[in-house]
Structures are given as structure tokens and as C-alpha cells.
């Protein structure tokens, strides 16, 4: 499990993440929702060692993220962010191969090649494996990066707003894919989402943040309610049900 204890991050005087204690990484998909500036991405960045923690501790399966060797953590936890701009021209296969870096420190053995093939296959990237990333569409590029994190072969997978700048079709594809990875491969996925209905439809747990703190955490039916959404987003939103999932009607 990913365990956070009294984790705080401040910029100047404002605490962006304020004394948060929570366990993340239950089996299946956990979505983190909340308004802009609620501290979702900051929280994820601290778990992923991209930001220093001001106070408190974060452990992954008992390993403290600030003191444990990077390679060891990288075999348990993969992080994917959305600013995937690269200066170098890489092919899809090159990129996916990087996912094996924590295992072989850059040397690829037969088992690494297998893992790479599996990841490429799993994301249907076979036809474009030799293409350069800048020749792909946005959705394909997104899948290539996902393949890299799959090749990393970790139990936990952290994604920061994976649906950003994707069209509806690719959004749905991505969410279905993550669901599949959670069910078939036993991945424990934590992702930051803006669309609360995607969160409601695909998650096993939802964590709602407000002003740097955890507001509620629980099953989708417990979090996606008119009362909670009012407190989190400051809006009155009707919640209906469809196919067993709560659906927020916020367009009307």
C-alpha cells in the first residue's frame, strides 16, 4: 500500500497539501478528484518523488520514498505525467524499452525484451513499434507512454490527468484500457481525473480533495453525491444512476 502520514507541502505561506494522512493503492482503480488547486497533482508528485515533502512521510509497501533508492521504488511504482514533451526523437520501441531501465539499468536481457513485447502488444502498438513518437497521433503517443509504464512491471501505477487533451473516443479507450489492466494484470492504479463521471464509472474508490485536505474517500456511490459535490466544487449538481454507477448531471 501507499501510505501517507501527515503529509504537507507549502508554497510560501499557503499549504497546497495540508496534513494529509491516507492509504492509497487498493486493488483496482482509485480516482482522485477535486477542484483546481485542491492539491491533487501535488499529492501525486510527492508520491512520485517529483516534489520534496515538507513534512510527514510517504511509504510504498513500507519503503520511505525520500530515503529509498530510486531504482528499488521504480520497480514498485510507475508514474506517468502529462507533459510528455521530448527533445530527442525516439521510436515507440525505444520509449517502451526505457520502462525496463529500473530492472536492468539499461541492459536488455531476454526477459526484458519479452516484457517490452508484451507491453507493446497489450496496447496494440505493434504496427507502429518502429515509428517515431512525433509521427504518431496524440492518442497513440499516450498509449506509447502507457506501454512504457506497463513495461516497468510495477504493482502501482500513478497517472496525473491521463485524459487531458484527448478526444472523447481516446478518453473512453484509455479508461477501458486502465480498467482492463487493473482486472487482468492486477495493477493498482491511482489517477487524477477531472471528469467526475469517468471517475464514477471506472473507479473502485474515489478520493475527493478540497483545499489541500482529503474531504471524503470511499466507494463511488459514497463520494459522487449532491452533498459531497457541493462541498468539493461549490456547485449544486444532481446525481442520477445509470447501470449501477452514479452519474452527475452537471451540464444542465
Amino acid at each position, binding site marked *: 500500500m501507499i501510505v501517507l502520514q501527515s503529509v504537507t507541502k507549502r508554497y510560501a505561506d499557503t499549504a497546497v497539501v495540508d496534513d494529509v494522512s491516507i492509504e492509497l493503492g487498493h486493488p483496482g482503480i482509485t480516482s482522485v478528484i477535486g477542484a483546481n488547486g485542491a492539491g491533487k497533482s501535488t499529492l501525486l508528485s510527492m508520491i*512520485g*518523488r*517529483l516534489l520534496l515533502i515538507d513534512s510527514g512521510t510517504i511509504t510504498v509497501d513500507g519503503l520511505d520514498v525520500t530515503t529509498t*533508492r*530510486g*531504482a*528499488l*521504488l*521504480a*520497480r514498485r511504482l*510507475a*508514474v*506517468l*505525467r502529462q*507533459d*510528455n*514533451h*521530448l*527533445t*530527442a*526523437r*525516439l*521510436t515507440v*520501441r*525505444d*520509449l517502451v524499452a*526505457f*520502462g525496463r*531501465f*529500473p530492472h536492468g*539499468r*539499461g*541492459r536488455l536481457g531476454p526477459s526484458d525484451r519479452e516484457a517490452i513485447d508484451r507491453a507493446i502488444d497489450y496496447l496494440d502498438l505493434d504496427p*507502429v513499434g*518502429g*515509428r517515431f513518437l512525433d509521427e504518431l497521433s496524440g492518442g497513440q503517443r499516450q498509449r506509447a507512454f502507457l506501454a512504457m*509504464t506497463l513495461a*516497468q512491471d510495477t504493482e502501482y501505477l500513478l497517472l496525473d490527468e491521463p485524459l487531458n487533451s484527448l478526444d472523447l473516443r481516446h478518453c473512453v479507450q484509455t479508461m477501458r484500457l486502465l480498467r482492463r489492466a487493473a482486472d487482468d494484470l492486477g495493477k493498482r492504479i491511482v489517477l487524477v481525473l477531472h471528469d467526475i463521471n469517468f471517475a464514477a464509472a471506472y473507479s473502485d474508490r474515489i478520493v475527493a480533495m478540497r483545499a489541500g485536505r482529503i474531504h471524503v474517500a470511499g466507494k463511488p456511490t459514497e463520494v459522487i453525491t449532491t452533498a459531497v459535490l457541493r462541498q468539493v466544487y461549490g456547485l449544486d449538481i444532481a446525481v442520477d444512476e445509470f447501470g449501477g454507477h452514479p452519474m452527475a448531471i452537471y451540464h444542465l
Partner: protein
Amino acid sequence: MPTDTLSQAVTGVAPFVRRHRVCFWILALTGVTVLLVTAYLFTDVTGSWDYVVQLRTRKLAAMLLVAVAVATATVLFQTVTENRILTPAIMGLDALYVLIQTVVVYLFGASALAATDPVLRWTVEIVVLVLFATALFQWIFTGAGRSIHLLVLVGVLFGVLFRSVTHLLQRMIDPAEFVVLQDAFFASFSVSERLLGLSAVTITFAAAGLVLIGRQLDVLVLGRAHAIGLGVHHRQLVAIVFALVSVLVAVSTALVGPITFLGLIVANLAYHLIGSHRHWHTIPAAILLAVIFLVGGHLLLERVFDLGTVLAVVIEFVGGIFFLILVTRKGTR
């Protein structure tokens, strides 16, 4: 349609083609290098063969060392700073080197300095420069979210500042003393064998350091976030690379003075030709290109155009235009 099928065909065998592309270019560049070096050493010899060849060998050794240092430093620097238009020399390191020398003279006077052993002086200057440069890089580059263009401009301005302060201090030193001093300074640096040896040893150590970092460097091309996610100790790695870059640039500046844009040109050409992100491929290619540029440039300017020592100016001219092309093209951020 035809181009489409063609590209399909090409991408199908891409790994094969690419492996050979790297081999091809490395071999081709090596060939050109050998050719140029031979031409440089053995053509157009007037007077004593032994003397001329020996003199040229020494000069050639200096060029080779500089090529290794500048090319390696630039590729490393660009990897760490995640861009392709920045070079350590644009950051004013060469100007800093001259400034450090001037400050030493200003503080301790020329006579005291002339008395010290040149090797000791060289060592101290290199150490001071490396400390300064590493601190400067750390300060500038660890500030999150700064645009790459800002960093280049800040670097350029640091260069201007260093040069201005140097000018100022030079005027503050007694004019008569300064002239004497300037001779003592630069004469000792004109390719003495001891200095060449020292530089070679230093560069070898830096290269050894590079081998230790090894493949972690390749992961850096994915950017900071991915590198950390893949288990690279980013902060430590960047600090090490900055230190290596400082050493390399310091050594090359001490040997021949500033050649600001050479690294920029050879690094970008190397990426373009090799088409690989592996440092194991790009750095050798960049080094070979640097040798070709330096030796070829010397041949062309000295023997063909009889222009003597203006290579630095020509590199500045070509490199400046190259830089402008790079930034006016798309995709440099």
C-alpha cells in the same frame, strides 16, 4: 500513396536501418577525420620535416583534446538541460575563466603570480572555475519552471557581465604591469607539452566519470519527471554532469581560449546524422565532427586562404547563424 508505402516499408525495418546508420556515419566520420589529420600533418611541409611535423603534432593534440572536451561537454549539457540550443560556452564559462585569472592578478599582483609554478596555477584555476561553474549551473537550473530561452539569455548576460568585470579590473591594474602580465599569462598556455599532458589526464578522468554514470544519461532524454519515475537519482546525476561539464570546458578554454559555438554545431549535427538518443552513439559522432571542424578549419584557413588565427571568429560567425536557424525553426521550444 507511394510515399506512404515507402515509409511503411522503411519503418518495418527501422531498427536494422538505424543500427547501420549509426555504424555508417561513425565510420564515415572516422574516415574523414583520418584523412584530414593526415593532410594536416604531412602536406605542405617546408623546411625541416621533423621539426614541422613535431610542431604540428603538438598543435593537433591540442585540437583533439579540445574537440573531445567541447563535444562531450555540449552533448552532456544539452541532455541535462533538456534542450538543443544551449551550450556551456554560451553560458559564459570561457569569460569566467579569464575573469578568475584577472581577479587573481588583481588581488595578488603580477610578480607573485609569475613566481608560481604554472602547473600549480593551472590546477588552482581549474578547481576554482569548476567550483564556480557548478554553483552557477545549480543556481540557475534548479529553479523550477524557467523557460529555456530565459536560461540562455541569462547565460549570455553572465558572459557579458564577466567580460565587463574583467575589462574593469584590467583597467584597475597598473597598465604597465598588466602588459607584462598578459604576456606571462598566455605565453605559458601556448601548447606546452606539460599542459597538454595535464589536460589529457584530466579529460581521461572526466571520461571515466562518464562511463560510471553510463546509461542513466540515456534516461535523461525522457526529461526529469520520467527519469525520476524510472528510478534515476536526478538531482545527484545532474550535479555530477554539471561538474564534468565544468571540468571539460575549463580544460578546453585553458588550452585554446573561447570557441563558443563549436559545441552547438557539432552536437546538433551529430543528433541529426546519427538519429539515435544513445550517448554512446551521439558523443563519439560529435567528437569526430568537432575534430573535422577544427582540423579542417585550420587546413582551410591556414593553407588555402592563408588567414592564420581567425578560426575562432569564423566559428562565431557560422555558429551564430546556425543558432538563429535553430531558433527560427519549429520545435526548439
